[in-house]
């Protein structure tokens, strides 16, 4: 069994109006050092015993459903559980 932490973020070339709005709020609160915010998604996927190679399995799931690679990038970390 493995726990996979997947991060899905908007590509650099895609504007993130939500991130800009949150950044605006923080600056308004006095956190003038905040220069930019990008908001993304975090997914924890627990994967049971499998014959498949974990990397190719996770990549396939990301490409097919979890991320839309037209607008999003993804990266992941594999954390072994017991």
């Amino acid at each position, binding site marked *: 069994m493995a726990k996979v932490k997947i991060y899905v973020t908007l590509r650099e070339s895609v504007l993130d109006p939500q991130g800009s*709005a949150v950044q605006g709020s923080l600056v308004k609160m006095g956190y003038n050092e905040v220069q930019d915010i990008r908001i993304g*998604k975090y997914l924890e996927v627990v994967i049971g015993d499998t014959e498949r190679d974990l990397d190719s399995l996770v990549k396939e799931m990301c490409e097919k*459903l979890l991320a*839309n690679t037209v*607008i999003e990038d993804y990266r992941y970390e594999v954390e072994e559980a017991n």
Partner: protein
Amino acid sequence: MKFAVLVFPGSNCDIDMYHAIKDELGEEVEYVWHDATDLSEFDGVLIPGGFSYGDYLRCGAMANQSNVMAEVKKFAQAGKPVLGVCNGFQILTEAGLLPGALLRNKNLKFMCRTVGLKVTNNDTLFTNQYEAGEVINIPIAHGEGNYFCDDKTLAELKANNQIVFTYSGENPNGSLEDIAGIINERGNVLGMMPHPERAVDALLGSNDGLKVFKSIVKMWRESHVS
């Protein structure tokens, strides 16, 4: 001509679409549930607006994995007409049947109003009843209608005349080049954010959308009835 109106959990413009075809257009129409595995009895597929699967993960992402979408891909490959409106447009981009993606509206607001829409290509299966450059009034109702694609795709869309509708006047969502609707290269799959099925009766504000459906029927009659 017989239309299928796809219904996903969370679709909410399916009844308007059905009404437009049955009562205003006078053609045959049936609801088709998302787990259907056969579209062979239909001549056209309509993917309605709404919030399929609650818009969870991304608009249209999970609807794209339903049984019926595998059939829609075959249907489109056979050259038959497929129209996706609003969430239907989002599903078509997720399915790869249309290029690009629909992002969150630039102003972060859900926009619900009637907009001016320019018919930038009237030489299509879906717009042949309009004049070239005609401006029509059609309602929008979406939070994620901000069309985005990369520069290469945009150049292709322009080169192939695939941009069918653009917003006239105010751009309500920040979409690239004011794009409101695009067609695939072959010309049988159209996606648009505005709702033509909500503009089919002057009594309800506008019947400018009816010609989208009339255009489909006209093309079908010409190729199927001698």
